[in-house]
């Protein structure tokens, strides 16, 4: 191979490299014409990350005119158990909830009045795994994430939409740390809110 051949080869290679870079650059420029992720969506992803790296322990729920404590823990193999202080026990599997046999009566009397009581009890109980599923669904469907701003115990917070728009479920998170602070539930027949307990590590048994 002579020096001339080498020069020829280098010229061919340089032309091909330039062409290839032009194709890659054009592809990049073309994809960049799509809208970039919106700040609200990015915030939603960060909150989702926060929810998936820790777990909730429970909450104090104001619902149907009563204030009740609720604890949340894992229920093997893959469900979550929500235990209300009045004895109501709910099993949560993904976004599906069903009532377990219990001796509780206090909120039971409200069942006939509020057809969506079960959903409200699940949504307000402070389960991070439930909140993460509802938030991920919302992100994946391209629905609005931030409902507005709020203050909880003096802390500036975001109000975050969860799940569908009806009923309206919102998670309130600390603006600085994104720690979940509270949740609200509102439907045509029922409204309530809860103050969430402190988060713990995601592998803790007595949390969900």
């Amino acid at each position, binding site marked *: 191979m002579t020096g001339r051949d080498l020069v*020829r080869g280098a*010229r*061919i*290679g*340089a*032309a*091909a490299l330039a*062409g*290839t*870079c032009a*194709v*890659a*650059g*054009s*592809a*990049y*420029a*073309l*994809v*960049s*014409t*799509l*809208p*970039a*992720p*919106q700040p609200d*969506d990015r915030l939603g*992803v960060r909150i*989702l*990350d926060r929810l*998936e790296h820790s777990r909730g322990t429970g909450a104090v729920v104001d619902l149907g005119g009563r204030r009740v404590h609720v604890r949340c823990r894992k229920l093997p193999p893959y469900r979550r158990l929500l235990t209300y202080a009045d004895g109501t026990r709910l099993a949560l599997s993904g976004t599906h909830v069903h009532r377990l046999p219990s001796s509780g009566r206090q909120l039971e009397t409200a069942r006939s009045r509020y057809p969506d009581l079960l959903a409200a009890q699940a949504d307000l109980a402070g389960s991070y795994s439930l909140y993460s599923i509802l938030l*991920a669904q919302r*992100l*994946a*469907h*391209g629905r609005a994430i931030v409902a507005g701003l709020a203050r909880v115990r003096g802390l500036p917070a975001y109000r975050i939409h969860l799940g569908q728009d009806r009923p309206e479920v919102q998670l309130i998170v600390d603006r600085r740390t994104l720690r979940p602070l509270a949740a609200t539930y509102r439907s045509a027949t029922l409204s309530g809110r809860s103050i969430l307990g402190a988060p713990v590590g995601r592998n803790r048994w007595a949390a969900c």
Partner: protein
Amino acid sequence: MPGDGLAATSWTAERAFAYKRVVLWWAASRAVVLGTALAVQAAGWPRPSWYPSVASHPFALLGAWDGRWYRMVAERGYLAIPHHQSDTAFFPLYPILLRSLHRLGLPVDAAGLLVANVGLLIGLLALYELAREWLPQDAAVRTAVYAAVFPAGYVFSMVYPEGLVLAAVALAGVFAARGHWTAAAVAAAIGALARPEGVFVALPLLALAVGRWRSLSDGGRGRALTAVAAAPAAVAGLALYHWRTFGDPIAFSTAQREWGRWLSHDGVWRALVELSRAPGTYNVWLFRDALVCVLYVVLLVVALRAGVPRGWVASGALIVLLPLFSGSFTSIARFGVLALPVYAGLGAVGRRPWLDRGVLAVSLGLLVVASATILMRWP
């Protein structure tokens, strides 16, 4: 040799007849798919309660499944959601086109159907031209006609990018075969930016470039190498975007894990295990994809024996078989519609008139069934 010299590019009565036949079969097959979709929607079959949004507007059925994701990318761009199904799994060119047509006033779904069906028409004509490089004239016409009526080809009329990719890949092949390397590079890049399968067109282009290397000028060699690298380069451009936007250059691949797909050496075994557990479950539809996968492999072998270049057959084999390494037969029927030699294999099979009529009749019947069952299983 078919395709050599002036005859390959000039307008002849033979070509005019072939074009007419291909256009007619395109129209007939699309009438079958669109008509079946309309009828299914109107009848509320299989159950009116399934997906109420399907009845929202005509042909809404054809925008189901992945169509929703493409619409979402078109409307709001990408958003990577770690550990959840994300739209980054879907390649960008098709939603970009949807977005552009939407800006001109077309509804997004209508734009999707337009791009898909017009893409198929261009793809069929280009496939005929490409098949002329491989097979005798009558087999080349059959190749394009069989592609039009191929049962899994109902996806060419859905809000899916397959029609666009078929056109891009076939055009890349035609341009390269005729020495138009720059046009081949553009077409290859378009294919790769619309579906991951598009990247495999690099293989036949490489084979063509190597085969003609000695006869190419220095400039031609540079352009040929660019055409070979164009499809991977387009994917590299996409990777650069994902890296800058989400910090993950392979976000399109990462997102696939949430659909249960990831490439691994034991993927074929996982796919077979999944298939063995399918009977009696909703997943029994996997057998449809597995059977079509076997058909694809057989037709690729037939295509090879009929004289289709090895580069194209290898590209088709990668399109059909590589997804098995991600652990599932799911959607292989759809992936394989972009393996062009499959149609050439079918075209070679149907040389006897009774076989030709049989292939057309069976394909059209299955096309109706496949179009009618869109809601029962994603393509």
